[in-house]
């Protein structure tokens, strides 16, 4: 099975998310970017599928901040091919635009399956995978936690709330939004990524020109102002622990001498 995994760069949520001067987007110029964690899950599921059933894995990324590192890391993990779609994307790419670029690029590729992260932290106008599938007019399944070969197509396990899972069969090509791979994404050492970098092997081609707009306008971006922010406990760990003990004790949740 030949599998394509689109990989998106997104801001590292652990960082303080500074806003641009207009207050309409995060400050993309200075923030740290990492691979979308769900795309990492999609890559892992793709590698597992390849190991079990043969075929190839191709990762493809739009030229976003630090995408090279993500693509080389995928090669080091076992992807066969990595493609960077070049262009001016520093100011952010909507899901509709991303999906349209991928759909146009996929038009020239041979593949059986696209695995993509189920969502990203900034997909304001919807999840890329499902938009892509419907542009390509192929079947789609969201929130997948497992994909296996099945009668010439695939079997997808789709997760609902409360841990209920339904299994669906898809014949022909499909785009699947991965929530979690069957196992945690594999680790790859920095030295192996460096080796991959030295080996080169990152294909570059200009991103297809597309007419696509999300139709949405961000008026402003802001940190939610909670009316009930936590009361922050002061002092070192011992002092904090003592206050927590007091609080849970007041509510009768710790019983001395019990």
């Amino acid at each position: 099975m030949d599998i394509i995994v689109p990989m998106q760069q997104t801001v590292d949520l652990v960082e303080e998310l500074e806003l641009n001067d207009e207050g309409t987007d995060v400050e993309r110029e200075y923030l740290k970017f990492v691979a979308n964690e769900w795309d990492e899950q999609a890559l892992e599921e793709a590698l597992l599928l390849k190991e079990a059933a043969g075929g190839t894995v191709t990762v493809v990324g739009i030229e976003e901040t630090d995408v090279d590192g993500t693509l080389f890391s995928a090669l080091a993990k076992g992807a066969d091919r990595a493609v960077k779609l070049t262009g001016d994307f520093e100011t952010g790419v909507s899901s509709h635009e991303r999906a349209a670029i991928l759909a146009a690029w996929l038009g020239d590729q041979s593949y059986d399956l696209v695995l993509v992260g189920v969502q990203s932290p900034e997909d304001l106008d919807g999840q890329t995978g499902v938009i892509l599938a419907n542009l390509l007019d192929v079947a789609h399944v969201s929130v997948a936690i497992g994909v296996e070969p099945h009668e010439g197509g695939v079997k997808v396990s789709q997760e609902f709330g409360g841990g209920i899972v339904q299994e669906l069969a898809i014949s022909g090509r499909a785009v699947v939004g991965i929530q979690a791979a069957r196992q945690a994404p594999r680790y790859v050492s920095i030295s192996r990524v460096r080796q991959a970098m030295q080996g080169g092997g990152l294909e570059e081609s200009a991103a297809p020109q597309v007419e696509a707009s999300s139709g949405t306008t961000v008026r402003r971006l802001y940190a939610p102002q909670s009316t009930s922010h936590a009361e922050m406990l002061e002092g070192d760990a011992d002092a904090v622990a003592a206050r927590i003990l007091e609080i849970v004790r007041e509510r009768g949740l710790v019983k001395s001498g019990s």
Partner: protein
Amino acid sequence: MGNDIFVLVEHTQGAVDDGTHELLGRARGLAEDSGGRTVACLLHAGATGAADGLAADVVLSVEHPSLEHFLPEAYVKTMAALVAEHEPRATLIANTTVGMDVAGGLSARAKLPLVAYCTAIELEGDELVATSQLFGGKLNAEVAVDGPAICSVVAGSFEPATGGSPDVEDVAPGGLDDLATSFLARVEPEASDVDITAEEILVSVGRGIGGEDNIELAQELADALGGVVCASRPVTDGGWLPKTRQVGKSGQKVKPKLYIAIGISGAPEHLEGMGDAELVIAINTDENAPIFDVAHYGTTEDLFDVLPALTEQIEAAVSA
């Protein structure tokens, strides 16, 4: 553009999800503003009864054997046909597994803008203005769409409405006889060693705990408190704790007397499972973590310092 507000009904063989009633609650207000009707879209196979009591003016009922289970393709095609025919002002879809498949698919097929992760929706003249929860709950976006729009809605955003007596209109399905997707099986979750929904004290660990070996630190605290350890999704995905211990959108909804969140950022999908806990105490080194917006008490001290200290003090208090 018409004035009606569409809502996708989510149901399991006729049992309507709570989220649908929340959407109908907001749809009613929007329909008053737009001067249109609240229209519930019910896709099913022999579950017409699900229309009873929906807080809608009209139910569009589409019945077909391919709609017995949730097949994403069948739902998207059906909704795209309904929306093309009726041109609603807005279409509200819950941000569930079903909704994630339908909202984006509908947006692509009907060529309508989508605002995802909505927690508020208003109409301002021809514009629809929504609040979208992004970046793991750390930032909100105020988003405007000119003209008809699709909104996918975060659970718990709106007050539910029930108790209507809608007119039911049967609509013939189209394009559902030749699908690439078919239903194979439904798998219930495995039985659990503990039922975290029944526990009064939960010590919940997130990715910040760093690895399986450190779960012990939380277990010791839980033991001292007479509670149970549960977790956020990355912890169960990583196999550090069983899946049955997962709290959140795709895990369990819990309502304990005490919920101690340790190294959990408080993403919307996690908050969906524990927002109703009576007392929430959060330990997280990131002062901007959204968990502090739902916690009653919080500390930014390192969890690896707080946990041992807290366990020791509670053990001492219990045996005093």
